[in-house]
C-alpha cells in the first residue's frame, strides 16, 4: 500500500479522505434532513446536536484533506480529455471543496446566530462566530439548505462523471480512486 499519490493512482491517504468524507456526507445529509423534518423537541435536539458534531468533523477532515492535497498533488487527468471536459472537472472539484468548507461554516454561523453554541461531541465548545440575531439566523439557514442542495447536484455530477470516465471513455479515472485490487485491475480496451 502506498500512502502518497503516484502519477497514475491516488495513494491511501487521498483515497481514505475521499471515501471517509463521502460516507460521512451521506450520513450527515440524512441526519440533517431528518432533523429539520422533526418537530421541536427532545429528538430534534439530539439529532441536530449530532449533525453539528459530524459537521465540525467534516470541516476538520476537509482542512486536513486540502493540506494533504497541497503537499501531495493528485495524479493528472488523462491527456486526451478535451479542454471543456478538463474545465468542468476542475470547476466541479473546486465547487466540491468549496461546499465542504461553506456547509459546516454556514451551519456553525446559523447555530451562533440562533443563540446555540456548538459543541463537538460534548468535548469541546466552539466559539460563537456571530451575535444572536433571528433574521440573520433565518437567512443563514436558507443559505445552508441552499448549499446542501447545490452539494447534491454537484455530487450527482461527480458520480456521473466518474461513471462516464469508466463506461464511456474507459479510462482509469474511477479506478485510480478505488483501493486494493479493484484499483489495480488493468483496463482491458
Amino acid at each position, binding site marked *: 500500500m502506498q500512502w502518497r499519490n503516484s502519477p497514475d493512482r491516488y495513494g491511501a491517504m487521498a483515497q481514505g479522505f475521499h471515501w471517509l468524507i463521502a460516507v460521512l456526507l451521506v450520513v450527515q445529509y440524512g441526519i440533517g434532513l431528518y432533523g429539520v423534518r422533526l418537530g421541536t423537541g427532545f429528538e430534534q435536539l439530539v439529532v441536530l446536536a449530532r449533525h453539528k458534531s459530524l459537521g465540525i468533523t467534516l470541516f476538520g477532515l476537509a482542512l486536513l484533506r486540502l493540506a494533504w492535497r497541497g503537499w501531495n498533488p493528485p495524479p493528472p487527468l488523462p491527456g486526451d480529455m478535451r479542454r471543456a471536459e478538463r474545465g468542468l472537472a476542475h470547476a466541479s472539484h473546486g465547487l466540491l471543496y468549496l461546499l465542504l468548507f461553506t456547509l459546516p461554516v454556514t451551519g456553525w454561523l446559523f447555530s451562533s446566530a440562533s443563540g446555540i453554541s456548538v459543541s463537538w*461531541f460534548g468535548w469541546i465548545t466552539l466559539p460563537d462566530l456571530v451575535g444572536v440575531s433571528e433574521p440573520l439566523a433565518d437567512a443563514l439557514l436558507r443559505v445552508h439548505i441552499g448549499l446542501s442542495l447545490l452539494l447534491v447536484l454537484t455530487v450527482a455530477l461527480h458520480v456521473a462523471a466518474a461513471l462516464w470516465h469508466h463506461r464511456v471513455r474507459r479510462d482509469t479515472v474511477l479506478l485510480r480512486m478505488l483501493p486494493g485490487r479493484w484499483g489495480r485491475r488493468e483496463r482491458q480496451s
Partner: protein
Amino acid sequence: MMRDWLVAPAILLAMVMATPALAGPALAGPALAGPPCWTRDAADSQFEFTGKQAGAPAHGRFRRFTVQACFDPDQAQGELEVEVDLDSLDTRNATRDATLRGPEFLDVSHYPRARYQASDFESLGGQHYRARGTLTLHGVSQPLAVPFSFRVDNDGRQAEARGTAALDRRDFDVGQGRWAGTRWVGAEVELSFSLKLVPASPP
C-alpha cells in the same frame, strides 16, 4: 455679667445641636427597629442562569424579578425574599424559551413564579455572607445555600449584592419524560445575580 452673655448662647447652641440626637430615635422610630431594607433598582440588576445543552453552555436571564431584603451586614442578620417571574426567562432562542416554559420543564402556566426566602445568614468574613434559605420552584421546596457579597455605598443610599448558586434541576422535577436524562440537557443549573439595591421601607 459679660461671661453670662457668652455662656447663655453657648448653652442654647448646645441644646439646639443636641436636639436631633435626642429626637432622632423617636422621630425615625420603626426604621431603626430592624436592619435597613432594600429593593432592587430595576435598571441595573441582573439575574442570569446557565445550563448545558448538548455539551455547550446555554445562558439565559430573567427579565422580571423582585427583591426584598432587610439586612444588617454587621450582625449578618435579616430577611430576604426574591421572587422570579419564570415567564420572563430569555435564552435568546425562542424555541428553547418555549420549551423551558413548557410543561416538561418549568410549566410556567401552573408554576408562574419561583421564590427564594432566607432568614438565616452567616458571615464569611469581609463583605461575604451566606444565606441559608429555601427555594420553591416548580411546586417543590428545597433548601439552597447562596453565598453572596454585600456592600453599602453612597452613605446608605445604595447597596450592591452579587452571588452565585448552583442547583440540580432534578431536585425540583424540572425536565420530565425524555428530558429527565442529563446527557443532552445538563442536571446542574448555575444562577448568578448582580443586584443594585435602593432603600425601601420595611415590608
